[in-house]
């Protein structure tokens, strides 16, 4: 398959996450690792009300596809899904899902970890924390 890559405004709810896991998992895969980023109720000592994500969508999807291509080369799997939601997200909602399916689990863990780490440092997506005492675009 080609990797599933998407910037979306749709909720990454249970059905959406399971659909990604199913799309990524093939009959040759024995281990599937899924990372979900979830909106926390506090950060930097502040109580968060909600988050607002923005992206440079065309470039973000190109960078995410580049990550999937690197994963494919280094871990020999193209069974990868990387989806990031933008717009307003409430506490407990999922901002990003990365799924990697491999024949064996070690590769799936490494590749999934690599993908989310690299996403955070290279993909043009931004986060505004709306806290009880103000709002701010924050790094990380």
């Amino acid at each position, binding site marked *: 398959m080609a990797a599933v890559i998407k910037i979306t405004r749709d909720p990454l709810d249970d059905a959406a996450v399971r659909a990604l896991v199913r799309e990524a998992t093939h009959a040759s895969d024995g281990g599937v690792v899924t990372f979900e*980023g979830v909106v926390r109720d506090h950060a930097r000592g502040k109580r968060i009300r909600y988050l607002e*994500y*923005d*992206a*440079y969508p*065309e*470039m*973000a999807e*190109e960078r995410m596809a580049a990550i999937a291509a690197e994963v494919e080369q280094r871990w020999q799997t193209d069974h990868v899904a990387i989806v*990031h939601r933008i717009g307003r997200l409430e506490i407990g909602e999922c*901002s*990003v899902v990365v799924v990697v399916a491999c024949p064996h689990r070690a590769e799936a863990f490494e590749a999934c970890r690599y993908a*989310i780490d690299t*996403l*955070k*440092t*290279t*993909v*043009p*997506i*931004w*986060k*505004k924390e709306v806290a009880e005492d103000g709002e701010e*675009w*924050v*790094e*990380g």
Partner: protein
Amino acid sequence: MQVRIRYFAGLREATGIEGEPLDVPEGATAADVRTLLSERYPALARLLPPCAVAVNRSYVATDAPLHDGDELVFIPPLGGG
């Protein structure tokens, strides 16, 4: 020549617009545009210095020369994940 600027996140909030065309001299760089924009939008003056630069969706050095028709985006510190 003319380049197209797009604004995202805090830069969009500071300018109040999604993007704009910008006339720049031949050989201008992203650093030159940064100076120009900081004068036009005082609110950008403190936001642009930490930004990376993307031209036509690829990261480039701040002093790389721009070309007519380029899409230029200043990339604030990332917050994805």
